């Protein structure tokens, strides 16, 4: 039997689909208004977005999962369910996603090939997980190495969305000593527009925002130097954190459960990486806007930054040395002392030599210079 997903490759416009599901125009406009806000677009764009998305055909999406933990999929499909984030899945036609699709084995792979054929040059490729370059056998799907599958599927894609820190920057699999030789999507694919949506996992609404932007404008949002949409990754967690005023006042929690922590004081001393982490957690928050890690009492670990796992201990303040210790400095002082003794000995022997070489002059030896 043909898998359901392949039958959805061109099922009419999004507007028709939404009406069939009983989504009113008012609800849809509210969604578009929220999205324009998220994407930092002028409010007038909400109506334009609604019109554009309603008329658009459901976007074919192929989702490839490589060296990953499925946390990204969990994040996107579950945390906001069943609200706007599931609604956005009505806007797309998810043709291949080996965690979510019903089909398996050859049928599943057939779904991917069919979607690639039917929507050549138009489908959106979403990737989560890093790609092992050490040995193709480290991670395969249906006997196809991650590298081969990525290169083959990327060929006909309109754009690629790398979801999660593994796909965007290598993530945990790439952490030192990187046993699988893990690399990111952008390390392999050079000729396609790539939108990086990092995070471990990324915020669902960021993912939704990127898809909405693509559906509305038919292109990718403005990206920063690391390929991230500026609308979501433009500011640091620290700069938008509700605990920021306490940082400025010099009020810090010393432990995770002291009085200061309960008062909501800054977690900088407990190792919070908010000052160097660019993400939207502090503004969009998680779990239907409930809270974000810092609000739950734990410092930011910087999971959306490249190589965050190797960026020093998670519980050391950002201003602390990564590895310098008192004993290291003690050894340096001892070495300095030893060198000092050597220099002193040299200086004193030079002095003694000069003294020994000093020839005394008597009055008789002096001669008056004739003017």
């Amino acid at each position, binding site marked *: 039997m043909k898998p359901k997903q392949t039958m959805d490759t061109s099922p009419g416009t999004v507007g028709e689909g939404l009406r069939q599901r009983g989504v009113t125009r008012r609800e849809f406009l509210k969604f578009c208004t929220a999205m324009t806000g998220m994407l930092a677009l002028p409010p007038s764009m909400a109506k334009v977005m609604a019109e554009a998305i309603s008329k658009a055909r459901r976007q074919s999406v192929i989702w490839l999962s490589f060296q990953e933990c499925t946390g990204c999929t969990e994040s996107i499909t579950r945390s906001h369910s069943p609200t706007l984030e599931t609604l956005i899945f009505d806007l797309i036609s998810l043709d291949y996603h080996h965690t979510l699709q019903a089909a398996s084995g050859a049928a599943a792979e057939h779904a991917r090939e069919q979607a690639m054929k039917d929507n050549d040059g138009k489908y959106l490729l979403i990737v989560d997980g890093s790609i092992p370059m050490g040995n193709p056998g480290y991670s395969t799907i249906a006997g196809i190495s991650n590298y081969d599958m990525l290169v083959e599927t990327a060929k006909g894609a309109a754009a690629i969305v790398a979801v999660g820190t593994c796909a965007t920057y290598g993530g945990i699999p790439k952490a030192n000593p990187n046993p699988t030789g893990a690399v990111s999507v952008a390390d392999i694919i050079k000729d396609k527009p790539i939108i990086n949506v990092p995070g471990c996992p990324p915020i669902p609404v960021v993912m939704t925002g990127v898809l909405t932007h693509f559906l509305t404008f038919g292109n990718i949002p403005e990206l920063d130097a690391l390929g991230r949409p500026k609308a979501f990754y433009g500011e640091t967690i620290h700069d938008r954190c509700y605990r920021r005023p306490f940082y400025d*006042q010099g009020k810090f929690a010393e432990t995770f459960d002291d009085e200061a922590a309960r008062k909501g004081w800054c977690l900088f001393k407990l190792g919070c990486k908010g000052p160097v982490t660019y993400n939207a957690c502090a503004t969009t928050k998680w779990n239907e806007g409930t809270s974000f890690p810092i609000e739950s009492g734990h410092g930011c670990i910087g999971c959306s930054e490249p*190589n965050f796992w190797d960026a020093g201990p998670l519980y*050391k303040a950002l201003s602390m040395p*990564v590895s310098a210790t008192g004993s290291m400095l003690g050894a*340096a002082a001892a070495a300095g002392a030893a060198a000092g003794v050597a220099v002193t000995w040299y200086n004193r022997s030079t002095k003694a030599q000069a003294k020994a070489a000093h020839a005394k002059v008597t009055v008789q030896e002096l001669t008056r210079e004739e003017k």
Partner: protein
Amino acid sequence: MNHLDLLTFARGSALNWALIIFVAGVVLRFFEIFGLSRKTDLARPRTDSPGSGWRTMFTRSIPPQGMLKREPVTYIAGYVFHLGLFLAIFFFAPHIEFFRSITGLTWPALPSALVDASVVAAIVALAVLLAHRLNNPVKRMLSGFGDYLAWTVTLLPLLTGYMAYHHLMLEYTLMLSLHIFSVELLLVLLPFTKLFHTFSVFVSRWYNGDFFGRKGVAS
């Protein structure tokens, strides 16, 4: 290498090496200074002035009568700069965390806004002192490469720290890395330049006070 990798390097092996050179250099210099020693002065002191050296260590911090009026820029800007730098180094919360991680000691921090103001004051004072050094013929004649080098490597950490805090010019993580690198440059150069006065100032003041006391000149 992305900005976070650069920061990790700045906080990691770069900092380790800078600290090792700094600590070893300071100890080496002290051995060198004390080890060289002076000949014992066998002459009877002209005036009996016990504690002259110890007193001078502190009295030299106060301008002698009339000098404040004669050299107001040197004294006032000098005070403002040193005080501003001291507050920025030792009373900014992230800096205290740095010292805590190495020494285990901790003390209360000042609010960031106050530290910020003291950094601005220190930077302005440094600029004023440079202008004065260049415009005053005596100072200009006395100044050499070492003086301008010391001025530059002292300004850089203040400037990069200020710019990082206020998100100016460069991206924060990159600017923070540059701030740490500038501190590392300062640490590496400190034992071997005029900046060593940070450690030797009170030693030399004691020596001068004692020496002049014996000569019956001043204390």
